[in-house]
């Protein structure tokens, strides 16, 4: 990790209770995030990958305080967000922004692009006066590759890529330190994804932004992240710098994930052996004992069914939660 620590997540746990209530049903506890720890340095991009239900989005939502963690600490610029009062949180929230997967459902269909970007500028008292706000909106539109005339448009008049640019402009308006990017390109067409990824990288370089980049596309995550954490069933199973994780994965789940991605090259694919995992991700309602990955693991031993592997530093800077790593 480079530079000072901007965000540190310590032993984050988020459990959801289900069942009971009006319609009854079996009560249970979904262990969405089950003891996750990592930190992000200022100016760094940390990738968080995993399949649906692994807890990556819930982790992001806990950091944004959109979910109240069951336990654990979230230190942002040195302060524990879980202990802040509403007023203090309001001031911090400005510095902590989010870009969502689907820009269409996260934009107000009845507001123009300009009004949507200007609104938080007024609410947070960042830019006072209508004229100054208009200038700032124009400036933000230019930063994300849109034109001044886009300010007068409504979301439905924009393409998917343009809408995502508006979402990014709204996040930037708050002059954030950290942006949680939750699947920011997965709803976009292939030809547009690269535009948005390049934009996010340019903005990071220009404005010194820090990203938590949550995605399931391993190639995209490799491209944008400095370090990458792999999640499975509520836990981080491997964490390393980009090159180490992709060139020398230690956890059998990471290896299987990388092997499952088909490469756009027929000659290569004809020669390539895919390591196809058996079974499916078990329910987080009733996670397996021992290592949560053992029922699907191709190299599991007897002790994997009993002993929970700790995330340990196997090599300097390379963490894995596997007894056999």
């Amino acid at each position, binding site marked *: 990790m480079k530079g000072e620590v901007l965000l540190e997540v310590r032993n984050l746990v988020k459990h959801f209770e289900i069942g009971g209530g009006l319609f009854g049903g079996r009560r249970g506890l979904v262990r969405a995030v089950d003891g996750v720890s990592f930190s992000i340095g200022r100016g760094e991009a940390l990738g968080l990958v995993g*399949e*649906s239900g692994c807890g990556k989005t819930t982790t992001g939502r806990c950091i944004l305080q959109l979910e109240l963690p069951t336990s654990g600490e979230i230190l942002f610029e040195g302060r524990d967000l879980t202990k802040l009062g509403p007023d203090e949180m309001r001031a911090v929230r400005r510095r902590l922004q989010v870009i969502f997967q689907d820009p269409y459902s996260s934009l107000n269909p009845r507001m123009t692009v300009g009004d949507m970007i200007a609104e938080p500028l007024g609410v947070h008292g960042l830019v006072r006066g209508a004229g100054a706000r208009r200038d700032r909106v124009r400036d933000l539109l230019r930063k994300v590759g849109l034109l001044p005339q886009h300010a007068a448009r409504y979301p439905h008049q924009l*393409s*998917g*890529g*343009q809408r995502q640019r508006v979402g990014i402009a709204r996040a930037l308006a708050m002059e954030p330190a950290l942006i949680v990017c939750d699947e920011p390109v997965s709803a976009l*067409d*292939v*030809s*547009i*994804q*690269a*535009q948005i*990824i*390049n934009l996010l*990288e340019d903005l990071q370089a220009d404005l010194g932004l820090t990203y938590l980049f949550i995605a*399931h596309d*391993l*190639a*995209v995550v*490799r*491209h944008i992240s400095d370090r990458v954490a792999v999640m499975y069933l509520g836990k981080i199973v491997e964490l390393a710098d*980009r090159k180490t994780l*992709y060139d020398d994965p230690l956890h059998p789940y990471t290896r*299987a*994930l*990388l*092997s*499952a*991605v*088909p*490469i*756009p*090259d*027929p*000659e*290569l*694919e004809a020669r390539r052996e*895919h390591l*196809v*995992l058996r079974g*499916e*991700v078990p329910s987080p309602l009733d996670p397996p004992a021992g290592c949560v990955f053992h029922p699907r693991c191709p190299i599991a031993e007897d002790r994997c069914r009993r002993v929970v592997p700790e995330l340990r530093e196997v090599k300097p800077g390379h963490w894995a939660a596997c007894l056999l790593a």
Partner: protein
Amino acid sequence: MGTLLDVVDLQTHFVTRGGVVRAVDGVSWDVAESETVALVGESGCGKSVSALSIMRLVAPPAGRIVGGRILFKGRDLLALDEEAMRRVRGREIAMIFQEPMTSLNPVLTIGRQMTEGLETHLGMAQTAARARAAELLAMVGIPDPVRRLPQYPHQFSGGMRQRMMIAMALACEPSLVLADEPTTALDVTIQAQILELMKSLSRRLGVAMLMITHNLGVVARYADRVNVMYAGKIIERGTAREIYANPRHPYTRGLLRSVPRLDEPRRARLDPIEGQPPDLSRLPGGCAFVPRCAFRVERCAVETPPLRAVGGAGHVSACWEAERLSAAPEAVGGRR
């Protein structure tokens, strides 16, 4: 191998308030027996409407097939009456959709949904159909199939539902399966399972497959031939190897270059295709890709380029400048 499906100059239009949208605009392609053909393109390019047109499931009154022929085993499907068409659907041509949950009936058991087709199309008795349904579930790797038959779709995971869709599609032993983004809603490890399953089953049963997808990796692994669509037209076609090693349309080339690849060193910057996908109700004259094209010349905005031969093995491209692409620096095939 003989031609199984021959789509000739298909045109499917939608009437909207914004005007007529030519979702499929004079498209011709074919599938040989036991072959896997891919239809690749981005949202709105017309790939799904192409598949729906073959099944004659384009919803009227807005959507209409206004021209062309769909020759399946020599018969024009567009000339069949509804009764005859119903016998084709499911029995001879089956379809697998992206989101199985929306194409399954949530209030019917898995068993009932599977036996329905067997009873109507194949005239099987109920008990025989049930036994066959269990066999099919076992074939697609669903454990304990007899216990699964009385269950409902919501009791299945996403991957299991897609396995079930495959079992249903193959139930009547069709000669062609249309798979519309069959794994897009699935996680990557489950996607790998499902695709390997489809590949092995189609080989074993000799079923031809039309695979509709936007995922260039999936196409590379599973397709024999590829059709690339843009704005309602096929703009390039060839064997998968030709298309990937030697793309001869700027759009195909751009798509291949824009995706980050795990098998290559990380690039400092991605090469996107600039601009936005076209608005189909307001297409410019000439080639629809002109506004985004790095190779455009004056002629492109005036004259629509036809598909023409640009290489061996049926490699065709709808680009006036196709020859210039192979000489262009950093062509995809030359990168390694």
